[in-house]
């Protein structure tokens, strides 16, 4: 199981989502994608997209207006 870190700081919709979907394609099953973002729309649209893909995910607000999203490829 690998951990892949994706820096999406200072980027706005839809770039974090596109970056995540590109990265997920390259990953293997069981790998974990960690996205860091400061764009709250990304929380909404990444969650929506991940739920549609039926992947496991969670997110934490690590600082005021900064989040880490964890997505596991299943």
């Amino acid at each position, binding site marked *: 199981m690998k951990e892949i870190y994706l820096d999406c700081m*200072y980027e706005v919709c839809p*770039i974090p989502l*596109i970056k995540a979907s590109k990265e997920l394609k390259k990953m293997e099953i069981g790998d974990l994608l960690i996205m860091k973002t400061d764009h709250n729309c990304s*929380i909404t649209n990444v969650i929506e997209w991940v739920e549609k893909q039926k992947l496991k995910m969670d997110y934490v607000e690590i600082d005021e*207006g900064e989040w880490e999203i964890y997505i596991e490829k299943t």
Partner: protein
Amino acid sequence: MRVYQKVFKNPWSYMIGGGILALLNILLLAATGTPWRVTGGFFYWGIWLFETFGVMVNTDISGVYDGLGPSETLLFNTVSILNLSVILGAMLSALSSNEFKRRKIKNKKQLIVGISGGFLMGYGARISFGCNVGSVFSGIPSFSLHGWIFWIFLTIGAYIGAKILMKYLL
């Protein structure tokens, strides 16, 4: 705490947000006689900037002052108050959800792409008499045909833009 989370922290649904926007636009139209628009304000500010530096803008041809009321100026008018209020409201929303943050520029590419994108958007909004707010959001409910045409070409443009973004910019 639960109420705070619901009202200020969590994003509202598209239905609620859209409903509130529609209601506010109706109230704005009733109160000021003009629906919500955005880029017109920057147009006025641009002309003000040109005139301040001594560049004359032919306001007869472009019909600039037709859109301004008797007590309105290039800097201070309904559209510019609306624009400033949008910024103020967004700031209040960010502050009340504890998400206010200064955003930095990531790299040179983001800066260049941002400036060129903004320039194209501004130019396009002017030659088509409005942006997505003035033309789609306010134009279509006003039964203006130009809103529909704008919307069709906006969709085509967004599709091409997305292709360019996927292929060359990411």
